[in-house]
């Protein structure tokens, strides 16, 4: 369970560029919740996910995941509990390292890294099988440098890396926004499959209203650094794109 208790974040305080990005935001996710997050540009969606991931400290409030207080924890320490896929396909992988090396790094997320081999023999086989699930042919290019992959291939790989070691919370920030419609649909489908298979608690930001309705069991809308709409279950299933656009214009 994730508890976000009235968190505040102001960027560039005391300057002309001061910007309140999170304004006492409250949110509770139950285990297995797959929440789609919508909201206008600059609403604070990314800031919310980054605050949970620890990219920066919040000004006030607390973030608690399955009883662990993450609020004061450094980003790399929280990584133990979190899987993340970023909007920018460049951000989630190490371009100068091979596909297997990237996976091996991800497999050790949250572990102490010492003088054991960075990758073992049997991992190759394991990853070979996993990459097949993506149906992108990456299983035959395991020693290719990730920098040579396309954005879509990278996002699919990042997704695999984020879930290789089961995270307690999966954070997807518009992870298909930079992809062409076909690849985006594919990556989204894989995401859904992975989330369902592992019953992952997930937050997925999207600007696609259809996706927001079709995926997940819950939908929230963020505006001005707060959650302004929260629907789930049957109510969410009945939502229409028109209703959501209506909700947007009402804010």
């Amino acid at each position, binding site marked *: 369970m994730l508890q976000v208790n009235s968190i505040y974040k102001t960027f560039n305080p005391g300057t002309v560029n001061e910007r309140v990005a999170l304004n006492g935001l409250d949110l509770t996710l139950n285990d297995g919740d797959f929440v789609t997050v919508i909201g206008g540009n600059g609403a604070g969606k990314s800031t919310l996910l980054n605050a949970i991931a620890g990219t920066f400290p919040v000004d006030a409030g607390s973030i608690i995941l399955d009883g662990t207080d993450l609020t004061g924890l450094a980003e790399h320490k929280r990584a133990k509990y979190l899987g993340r896929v970023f909007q920018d396909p460049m951000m*989630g*992988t190490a371009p100068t*390292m091979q596909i297997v090396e990237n996976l091996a790094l991800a497999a*050790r997320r949250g572990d102490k*890294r010492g*003088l054991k081999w*960075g990758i073992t023999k049997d991992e190759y086989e394991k990853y070979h099988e996993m990459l097949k699930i993506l149906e992108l042919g990456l299983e035959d290019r395991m020693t290719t440098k990730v920098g040579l992959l396309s954005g879509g291939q990278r996002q699919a790989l990042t997704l695999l*890396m984020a879930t290789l070691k089961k995270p307690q919370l999966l954070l997807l920030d518009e992870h298909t926004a930079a992809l062409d419609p076909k690849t985006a649909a594919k990556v989204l489908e894989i995401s859904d499959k992975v989330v369902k298979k592992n019953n992952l608690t997930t937050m997925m930001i999207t600007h696609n209203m259809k996706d927001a309705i079709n995926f997940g069991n819950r939908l929230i809308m963020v505006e001005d650094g707060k959650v302004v709409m929260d629907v789930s279950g049957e109510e969410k299933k009945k939502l229409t794109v028109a209703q959501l656009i209506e909700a947007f214009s009402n804010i």
Partner: protein
Amino acid sequence: MNLLGALFSALPGAIAQGLVWGIMAIGVYVTFRILDIADLTVDGSLATGGATCVMLIRLGLNPWLALLCAVASGVIAGLVTGLFITKCGIPPILAGILTQLSLYSINLRIMESKSNQAVSVDKYSLLASQRYVRDISIFNPLVLLTVMLLILMILLYLFFGTELGSAIRATGTNQNMARAQGINTKFNTVLGLMLSNGLVAMSGAILAQYQGSADVNMGRGAIVIGLAAVIIGEVLFGKVFRNFFLKMLAVVLGAVIYYIVLQIVLQLGLNTNDLKMLTAILVAIFLSIPYWKGMLDAKKAGAKKEVK
């Protein structure tokens, strides 16, 4: 003929110098290519390694132990630069310059306020001396240097294959990704800098023994020579040498080639004072090539489109 003869007799010396600087260049490779930081600490830590080693040998310490202490001095220098970057938020280039500058004073202190301290091979059993560089014997420094480099390269190859080594590599290539995978990027940056400067100081320690003295200025422009070795190695062998061990070998060969070319231009009558400038120009040109090539390729691609 005379020229060739002179060159031939200068060859072993050039190779030995290249091998000594090869150790240094591997250190530069660790920061410049793996950590993606241009670390200017090395100009100072090379001399620190030399000074520490020479002074300790003069005090009667075993040369191997003196070498070890020299490495430690470089590791500490790297630590300081690393802390400047990660704990004080100072940009890497400036952090390196700050350490380098303070090392100048520290090196003078180590050398008891003299800018040069000699360590004679007649008095001490040095690990490497240029006096024997043309001898056919086990004391020829080329023997020790080759063995040392091989061992170092094997150790580094193994290290960068471990979880910790992989974490350093990930830190250098994508900090966002590294942190998202639970890697402490600050710690790994510091660790990489310590490793690099340890190697550089080791190179300085051997260089000082090889030439029979430590000089407070021996590291001036070292970063540029290191970069030259890295770049020459990549340009000449980059296409074939793909794995990490061979990449290090390319760097060492780059250093050796650099010193051989240097010998040639010296034999041709070049003024020694102009060397640093020539090295700088060489490095500037090679660093520019990828950029120019990119611009040219973009132009060509554009021209092709227009034709269509």
